[in-house]
């Protein structure tokens, strides 16, 4: 995957991240993409420096009696790539993904 060329599905994932959907499963929900697409895309994006991954707070995880979840956020580069992708896929800009209010607590676990 070239740094400057993002496929449509990857662009949608970036857009979802931008809109505040930062967990893998949430992205799947909001984009309708299958896990087999979303996760490899996230790994590639991370490899290319477009997203960063972090673990959520331990305390939240403990409440639900499960391990901490991993969330992803856009880097500056990722934002730039998204802007470029939006200019390429103009339909994407009009696709109004809902904005997620439940952002994860930004703290290392």
């Amino acid at each position, binding site marked *: 995957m070239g740094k400057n060329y993002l496929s449509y599905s990857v662009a949608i994932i970036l857009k979802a991240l931008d809109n505040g959907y930062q967990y893998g*499963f949430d992205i799947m929900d909001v984009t309708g993409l299958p*896990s087999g697409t979303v*996760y490899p895309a996230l*790994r590639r994006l991370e490899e290319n420096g477009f997203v960063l991954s972090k673990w959520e707070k331990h305390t939240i995880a403990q409440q*639900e009696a499960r391990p901490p979840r991993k969330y992803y956020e856009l880097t500056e580069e990722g934002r730039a790539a998204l802007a470029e992708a939006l200019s390429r896929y103009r339909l994407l800009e009009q696709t109004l993904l809902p904005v997620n209010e439940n952002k994860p607590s930004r703290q290392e676990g």
Partner: protein
Amino acid sequence: MKLHLRLIQFIGLIVPQRLRADWRQEWEAELRHREALLAEWDKLNVRNKFELLWRSFGALWDALWLQPRRWEDEMVQDLRLGVRMLIKHPSFTIIAVLTLAIGIGANITIFSVVNAVLLRPLPYPNAEQLAFLWTESPQRNIKERSSAYANVADWRTQSQSFADIAIFDPTVVPLTGAPEPELVVSVGVSANLFSVLGVTPMLGRTFTVDDAQRRVVVLGYGLWQRRFGASSNIVGQMVEIDGAQAQVVGVMPERFQFPDQAAQVWRPTLAGEAEKNKRDRGFWRVIGRLKAGVTLAQTQTEMNLIAERLAQAYPDSNKDLGVNVVPFQLQLTGRNVRLALWVLFGAVVFVLLIACTNVANLMLARSLAREREMAIRMALGAGRMRLMRQLLTESTLLALLAGAVGLFIARFGLPLLLRFSPPNVANLDSVAIDGQALAFAVVVSLITGALFGLLPAWKVSQSHLGAALKDGRSASGSISGSRVRGVLVVAEFSLAVLLLSGAGLLLRSFLQVQAVDPGFDATNVLMLGLSPMSNRTPEQIRVFYQQVSERIAALPGVESAGLINDFLTGGNLDALITTERDAANGAEPARVPLSGDGVSGDFFQMLHVPLRKGRFFDAQDTPDAPPVAIINETMARRFWPNEEALGQRFKHGAAQSAAPWLTVVGVVGDIRRQSLERESVPQVFTPHAQSPSRRMDLLLRTKLEPTQLAAVVRNEIRALDSTVPLTQIATLESQFAASGAQRRFQTWLLTLFSALALLLAAVGIFGVMQQTVALRTRELGTRLALGAQPRDVLRLVIGQGMRLALCGIGIGLLAALWLTRAVAGLLFGVTATDPTTFVAAPLILLLVALLACYLPARKATRIDPLLALRQE
């Protein structure tokens, strides 16, 4: 545990270990979070359960996508570890790299030669379609004879296999005029020769059909450079050939050498009227271009049919004659050179195999020493595959390193090899370490690495974790390890005995050839060819040569001088001789291979050829005296086996031919003029005065170093006649040595390679015995403590080593008996199953093995029982 979580656990197994924990956590957290959410909304229904399961199944793609990272990371790790291991054990690395480098270097060197001489296509378009056509006479064991014009014409019209057929006839002609007359090889060619070959001239044009009547020539690149200063307006100028003017119409490019590099002038030629119907005895050589898609076998079959038809139509001339189709490349290289090169190539491959075996042995020994390391790594979670890959990475590294050193060896070995190579091998001048040789080096290195790396890697995969951990030197691993090493030693000895017998056969042949008596004394003899202008009368020529031999013989430093038509001639393979008795009985003339030469001066005395009977030629053999001949012993035996040859009369050709009857006045010893390896044929010498010919070889024996006289001799001849073209002047020994150069070359190379094999095999068995003794220290110590004598221990250890050696030698001998048939074509005076060789080669190997086993065995006798037992 719920199904979807279990699935994640399971899929997680294939995630690279480094990432596994994180990966599992991410998926598990996500799934359980979702589960919790769903549980809040609703009790999980089937649909939701399925959806969760489906999502966790998607993790498989995620896991698969992560696979390349495992590769990258671990490969880098392997490499780093490999480099570290090689640096940490410098002596192992150096020995292994050098061993392999010798093998790889030898392979690259010989490959470069094989590639240039045998594999690289000739500089003609679709050169594989070009083939020579020879008249053959299987009954008289003649395979390649030149052909008669009428037969070739029939081949050309009747054959469907050839797109076209051209004829040519090389001769030596004097190139006269400024700056100095010289003799060059000129090839008379049919106008279509160049189009059959598919070549175009560098300057000007080649010939058209109309040129046959004109005096035009095409020049070779070398001659054009040397004699005409590479003048670009040479086309259209006149050159003087044998006193007559000829116009240059073209110059061929540098790489054009046809039929060989000696040819420098091509002129159109046309068969004379008398020749057009001639089927008996022709002098044409023939080359054809096959039509696209026609195979050589098809062509040969077709030509056989045509030859049969011709034999039926013209039984007088064509009975028993066949056509032999020989591919151009094979013709150019010669079957012998080709065979020799493939044999040498086979030999270096064997040397490399032995080197591989040795290094595999070293690696095995080391991997046994590393068993504990491997066991610990395995206990910590490294898979067998992983360890095998680690070992293979190490061996590949070693092999590539060795490949680099091998290239270096070849870089210096190749020029050395070429310096000692025979002079007459085509394309040898274009041998170089080029891209193809580099590619070959890389491929050979990689294969080598796999060859010697696989076995130790496999051993590791077989080793027992627990046993190795318990004890630094696991008993089971070592014993089965030494069994494998034993097998390797056996293999090594088999290969070595194979090489040694091959080399032995060649060496014996070489000695046999050296022992052949050439029948003359070539030391301090100079030779050069001369050919007076064609406008001289026979009488002028006779006088000229008489003066030459007298004046040269009178030069200070010259002992004696003599003349002969063509010293190095092959003679006529199929000559006719009629004896007086046969003529009287009306018998057919005898067909024999024969060389007939005019000689003058003290030819026989000068060469120290012994006179068996009768007399040498002398002043009484004038042109007007009765024609006489001196014959060699072979001739005397062939025609007058049980009677006195002196005084007998015979003639060349059939009884009714115009040739004069010759009376035998002397019988001389046989001389092998062309090569020591050719059986002497019947030879007829006539006095030059009675059979004058233009072109003669002058031979002179000097009292000093012969080359010192070269200039003096040239000047003396120039003083007699400045227009006489001369060939290069050279010692007879050097001319003669050229014919033996190939044998010397192949013999010494193969001997060198087998010596390498011997050395490597010795090192191999030494290493194994050394380690065996080390492993059995305790046992041997116990034996000594219980009263075994040092002699018993010696016998035990040596016995074990010799069993391996004997086993290998036995297998190798069987293989050798079968394989040395391949070199039969290179042998002289020995058979492929020469008993001397097949006794000597194993004996040498046994001796070497004994020596290699003795050193470790002696060490074993010095084991201190107390120390050995305390090792517990």
